[in-house]
């Protein structure tokens, strides 16, 4: 009994610390984003509560010595890049995982080659890619060289997610479709894909978020037009103003919105799955 109490207390402290470290930075950032502007800096105490920095981001604030965050185009680039990476990585990941459902010669080697993309340090990969591009005379750009590296990086994640999904997939359903005269391609579209869709959603989420805040690979291969994480990093170099925090709050809210969409879609498919699982053996009428 006593032991149980101690364990419980320890776990409570652990959980509290965990939550503190997880949300602490965000709370501090959230509070500081409402600092008075343009005089207030990124520190306590709060001189006066205001939404100055939010309007500063959108360019509504009166002109001051503080330059607006150069994020307009960077944000568009990052979102475009993340979206394209998500689409390509998820498709590649799903197809590769599908290939791994049957053992083929050299499948072990191929597996490690694919997974290598997420194991190799990003800085090295970025530097290497930059060197290769220069050797070949290919211009570095966020939509070319950086995009390729984003796919190399996120594709293994999508692949592993889909591999786990296919591991639990019952192949007899596909065999049933073939036996009904339905060719394999159409079987994949009409049967396999709808059944693995929750997994595909997860793979998409992984690919998108990983690409969206990717830094080291983009740093070397992104070329002159920077993505969001690089743009933000660039502003640190001079001086930090609370407009960064306001922006941080906004992007976090955006992430939550994405997660909500994911959760709603996932919930819908889980509900359908539960409906399927409700089969109870009872007498046939």
């Amino acid at each position, binding site marked *: 009994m006593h032991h149980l109490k101690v364990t419980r207390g320890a776990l409570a402290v652990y959980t509290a610390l965990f939550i503190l470290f997880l949300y602490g930075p965000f709370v501090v950032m959230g509070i500081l984003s409402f600092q008075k502007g343009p005089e207030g800096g990124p520190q306590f105490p709060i001189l006066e509560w205001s939404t100055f920095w939010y309007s500063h981001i959108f360019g509504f604030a009166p002109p001051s010595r503080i330059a607006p965050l150069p994020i307009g185009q960077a944000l568009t680039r990052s979102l475009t890049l993340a979206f394209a990476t998500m689409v390509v990585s998820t498709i590649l990941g799903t197809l590769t995982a599908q290939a791994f459902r049957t053992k083929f010669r050299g499948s072990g080697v191929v597996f490690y080659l694919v997974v290598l993309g997420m194991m190799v340090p990003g800085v090295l990969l970025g530097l290497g890619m930059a060197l290769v591009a220069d050797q070949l005379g290919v211009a570095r750009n966020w939509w070319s060289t950086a995009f390729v590296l984003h796919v190399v990086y996120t594709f293994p994640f999508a692949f592993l997610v889909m591999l786990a999904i296919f591991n639990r997939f019952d192949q007899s*359903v596909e065999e049933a479709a*073939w036996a*009904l005269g339905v060719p394999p391609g*159409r079987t994949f579209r009409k049967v396999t894909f709808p059944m693995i869709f929750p997994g595909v959603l997860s793979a998409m989420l992984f690919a998108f978020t990983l690409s969206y805040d990717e830094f080291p690979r983009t740093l070397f291969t992104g070329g002159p037009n920077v993505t969001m994480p690089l743009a933000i990093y660039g502003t640190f170099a001079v001086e930090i103003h609370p407009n960064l925090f306001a922006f941080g709050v906004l992007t976090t809210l955006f992430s939550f919105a994405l997660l909500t969409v994911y959760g709603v879609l996932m919930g819908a498919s889980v509900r359908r799955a539960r*409906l*399927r699982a409700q089969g109870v*053996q009872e*007498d*046939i009428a």
Partner: protein
Amino acid sequence: MMELTGLTRRFDGVPAVSDVTLTVRDDEYLTLLGPSGAGKSTLLRLIAGLERPDSGSIRLNGEDITHRPTHTRGLGFVQQSYALFPHISVFDNVAFGLRNRLVDPVTDETGVKRRVDAMLELVGLSDLGQRMPGQLSGGQKQRVSLARTLVTEPKICLLDEPLGALDANLRERMTVELRRIREALGVTFMHVTGNEAEALAMGDRMIVLDRGRAVMIDAPDTVYARPATVAVAKFLNAYNVLDGKAEIGGFRHGDVLLPLPEGAARAAHYAVRYDLASIEPAGGAPAPGRAAMPAAFIAREFLGSRVVYFLHRPDGGVFEVERHLSRSDPVDHPKDAALTVTWAVDDVLAFDASGRLIETRRLKGAA
């Protein structure tokens, strides 16, 4: 009509199906019986095109389909696990093949609806078309699985232990249903089962598989009355099989010498059907034409309409005697009571050293 010739499939060098040759006729109910691991499912999957044979051929109505992909064979395949499409309704499950097949898809929705409705009616699921598969009971899922296959009008419908996942009560009712549905459609059923009672009850003909080989292909009553090999006899779960050796004057089984039917001088196995043996008090000399063996009573099991008595043979094995209650009342004996089991010598089946049935005088007469 489908002809299998020398069909063989090995897994890592171990044959799962070896040299199976048989002809499946039109409009028949064929059951495929064998213990687990005998290669029943592999044989079915070979026919369906879900496995590739190492050698041999499959011809369907004269056409070689050995190397055709599954979706172009025109055969139906009903799995033990039902394998319903979980994300679409019962109606859409049944309509799936008609709408999506490569050969001759039905594009006109009223035609699909007419055929699906008729099929749901046939399997008794007319009211459940809008349900999702998860909302069905085991027996209903089985019917959907069957309807989904039959609506595509397969030339032959392969059923892989279709009743395996159902409880005993449901099983019995589905066997009747299956026969009714098959007769209504006139399609050939090839039904795999590990249950000898099911195979005997349902098939017009049955195939007994043992270690990948088709050891017997015949009508159920013939399989039951005169199994072609000792393995079949053992698997039917209806024979006491005694091992031993033929000698001058009879069959030597441990310490006892049993009379052999005429013409069975090569016997190595001696089989007596449970229901053809009887229990008598110990000591008496057997009546003419009957064989006797001492046995000690173990227990009896009441099975509703019949009783099975278990006895110890002199060599320690178990001897079973089955009595139908319409013929005699159950008799009780104290445990370990010394008794004699007897049977008519003419009812004995003798198998040679390679396990094959020896044609004895009486069997020749019966055939």
